[in-house]
């Protein structure tokens, strides 16, 4: 199966790798904290999402574009715009979290389960 898929997997590798490279440059060259880096990447994702660029990239690179945190911003914009298309102004507020729901719900739930089971390492 890998035979037919290797091109998709390679695309995911290249695009995902490039985003991580950008993140590393923001860490090491721009000397930003992780919080600043993440905020910049998410905001960049929203703006790219607004232009519709990121969805095209995600169609091309699959997980290479959807796994990095930049896609978080893109999914927020997609949700907000979809809501706006269906319900106008109020749709922005009701639709915005639709796409990121899985990410937030899973992160919070598994974080809580881990906190219940494990002891913090010092």
């Amino acid at each position, binding site marked *: *199966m890998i035979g037919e898929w290797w091109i*998709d*997997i390679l*695309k*995911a*590798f290249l695009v*995902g*790798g490039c985003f*991580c*490279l*950008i*993140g*590393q440059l923001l*860490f*090491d060259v721009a*000397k*930003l904290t*992780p919080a*600043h*880096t993440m*905020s910049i990447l*998410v*905001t960049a994702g*929203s703006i790219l*999402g*607004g232009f519709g660029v990121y969805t095209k990239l995600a169609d091309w*690179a*699959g*997980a*290479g574009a*959807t*796994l*990095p*945190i930049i896609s*978080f*911003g893109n999914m*927020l*914009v997609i949700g*907000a*715009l979809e*809501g*706006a*298309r269906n319900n*106008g*102004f109020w749709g*922005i507020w009701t639709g*915005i*979290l639709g796409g990121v729901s899985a*990410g*937030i719900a*899973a*992160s*919070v739930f*598994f*974080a809580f389960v*881990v*906190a219940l*089971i494990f002891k*913090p*390492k010092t």
Partner: protein
Amino acid sequence: MVKKPKVASWYDPIIKAHGTPRPLLRNCLVAFIFGGALCAVAEYFQLLISLIPGISDKDASSIVMVIVIALAALLTGLGVFDKIAQQVGAGLAVPITGFANSITSSTLEFKSEGYVLGSGCNGFKLAGAVIFFGIGSAVVVALIELILGIV
């Protein structure tokens, strides 16, 4: 981000001569390869899962994301995540693993202060920035597009 006090500047040349330089090229290469490999593996499982009848490409993407988050949370609990993250830097911080790790580590770290005041109140320490700026910018973008009528 750390400001060096002016008084201490006399030892700067000594640090330059004896300290190890920050291996920028190595860090970038490792982040690129590890982050890329993570996305490649995720893509492979995404393609595999989408073969299951009744599961669309979009569902497969969400399923893989939830699995990756669960693994990142588990590795954080075991104390392995930080060790790998020290080596690969942005390779683990930029993918959704970084988001999951930030919530899990602060939830776990503040457990000693109680589940409500500790874990509950501090869980979104770094993830809060992501959600704050993500939602903020997304609302602005959506409002602009709505006003311009290009929605």
